[in-house]
């Protein structure tokens, strides 16, 4: 009886979380889609002129899409090599005590509010970029540098889990046939952990794409298609964050429409992450699961097994 009650409560909680997702989806699309259809999907996505007020308003988000792409790719270029290096070091090379320090420190990095990152970018990094390269300082490169650090925790923790989850036999086998430690890592362990590493990169992309506050502070928010990494730009999220407070009528609808595009992009990224971790198998009739992280966590080799065998 008691068990059935608990089961029922858990079922209800699951239902609530799915229902809230459904409601959010419904409202974003309901508020944004009419405008997309009115201005035309092609025009909305390809026009780079965003002029929400005035007599002849224009709603084109091409410049923001490109801004988001540039900033996200920049963050990946900085965050992935760094994150992968930390993950490899922490999982394979570092003495256990050091690995035990790195993990909580990175968790701490994830706990810093994004406004603090933005403030650091605005007050410390932007003047440096301005002095070194010219331009306004608030630029794609500034935002990408800081975002690259902001996405480190997700990249490191998932990649490290994936590396640790590689069966002990792979490591032993590689070493037994005479591979050096580096060859073992680069030729055996990293390829074996590939799906987890790719998933971590995609989740990092999602985080960079979705970041708002820090980007508003560091990117300068110019409504132009960035032509160089030193140009200021606007992302999909930062434009919503910047303008929503004052927006009304069509302008507001257009911001929700921007949200629709963002929603679709993030959904695609999450779907890809699930595909790469094997949570979502498209070519077999298996039910897709919701969480990427949980499988990785469940599949990881417990520390006791790893060290004792």
């Amino acid at each position: 009886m008691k068990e059935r009650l608990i089961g029922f409560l858990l079922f209800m909680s699951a239902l609530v979380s799915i229902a809230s997702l459904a409601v959010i989806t419904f409202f974003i699309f309901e508020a944004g889609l009419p405008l997309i259809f009115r201005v035309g999907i092609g025009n909305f996505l390809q026009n780079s002129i965003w002029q929400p007020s005035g007599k002849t308003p224009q709603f084109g988000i091409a410049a923001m899409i490109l801004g988001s792409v540039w900033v996200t790719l920049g963050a990946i270029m900085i965050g992935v090599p760094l994150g992968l290096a930390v993950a490899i070091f922490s999982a394979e090379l570092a003495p256990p005590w050091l690995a035990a320090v790195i993990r909580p420190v990175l968790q701490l990095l994830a706990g810093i509010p994004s406004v603090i990152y933005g403030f650091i970018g605005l007050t410390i990094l932007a003047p440096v970029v301005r002095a070194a390269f010219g331009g306004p300082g608030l630029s794609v490169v500034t935002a990408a540098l800081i975002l690259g650090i902001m996405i480190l925790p997700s990249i490191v923790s998932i990649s490290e889990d994936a590396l640790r989850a590689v069966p002990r036999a792979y490591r032993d086998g590689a070493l037994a046939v005479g591979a050096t430690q580096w060859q073992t890592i680069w030729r055996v362990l990293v390829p074996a952990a590939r799906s987890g590493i790719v998933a971590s990169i995609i989740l990092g992309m999602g985080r960079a794409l979705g970041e708002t506050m820090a980007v508003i502070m560091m990117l300068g928010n110019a409504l132009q298609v960035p032509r160089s990494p030193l140009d200021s730009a606007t992302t999909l999220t930062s434009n919503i964050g910047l303008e929503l407070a004052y927006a009304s009528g069509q302008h507001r609808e257009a911001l929700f429409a921007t949200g629709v595009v963002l929603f679709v992009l993030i959904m695609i990224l999450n779907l890809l992450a699930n595909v790469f971790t094997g949570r979502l198998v498209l070519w077999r009739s298996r039910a897709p699961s919701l969480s990427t992280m949980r499988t990785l966590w469940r599949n990881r080799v417990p520390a006791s097994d790893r060290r004792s065998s």
Partner: protein
Amino acid sequence: MHYPLVLGLLILSLFLTGCGSAASAAADQLTLTGSTSVTPFAEQLAETFEKQHPESHINIQGLGSSAGIQAATNGTVELGMSSRQLEEDETEQLQPIEIARDALAIIIHPSNPITDLTSEQVRAIFTGSISNWSEVGGPDARIVIVTREAGSGTYGAFEELVMNKELPAQSALRQGSNGAVRQIVAEDADAIGYISLGIVDQSVKAISIDGVQASTAAVLSGQYKLVRPFLFVKRKDAQLSRLGEAFLAFVLSAEGQQELVQAGLVQGADAQ
């Protein structure tokens, strides 16, 4: 044909509700909605007013001029706040009360040798047709334009007063507040921006426009042109509540006005 009767009943009911709340001695409530530019000043005035009238409570909501005008039009609030003039269709139903005037200062980095620009030059800089400081007699450096986001009252005022409805250059940086614009300009030697005169400080330099330095005196004499009104708006056909009436009277009184002037604004045309 029953209009006067209905109006009379309406006023009577307003009067009665006014009496009722006064008699019940519960806290009087008044809500003002509108321009985020007016909000900090309205909050300050409300705070002083509440000290003098401890039984009353005034809520100030900064949602933007258009939202304030709309809220006053459809009767959601008694008083709306706007930092732009009412448009023609809006004046049909609403009465504007100018509580103060705010000058827009054009600011540049203190190290920039420029001290004066014509309004045409300012427009050309912000539209991007002048893109180097050397074209207006300054150093050879690319101009970094800092503007506000579409929809903000300051942007609306600048668009109207300077830009002639032309659009700012695409490369213009956009910031979400007066303070953010000031910070960017204070840090970038090549930047130009515009903020409320009241919050100009040592970190930036306000230049004169067409030979007139932005100052309270120049605004009062009408010489400085980049001036926008801070308005309270109310429906023409509605009577203010007792608290609304009292607060408005306080804002327009010598005491209220002095507080606004000390905060960096210029006396409103409707002040006593």
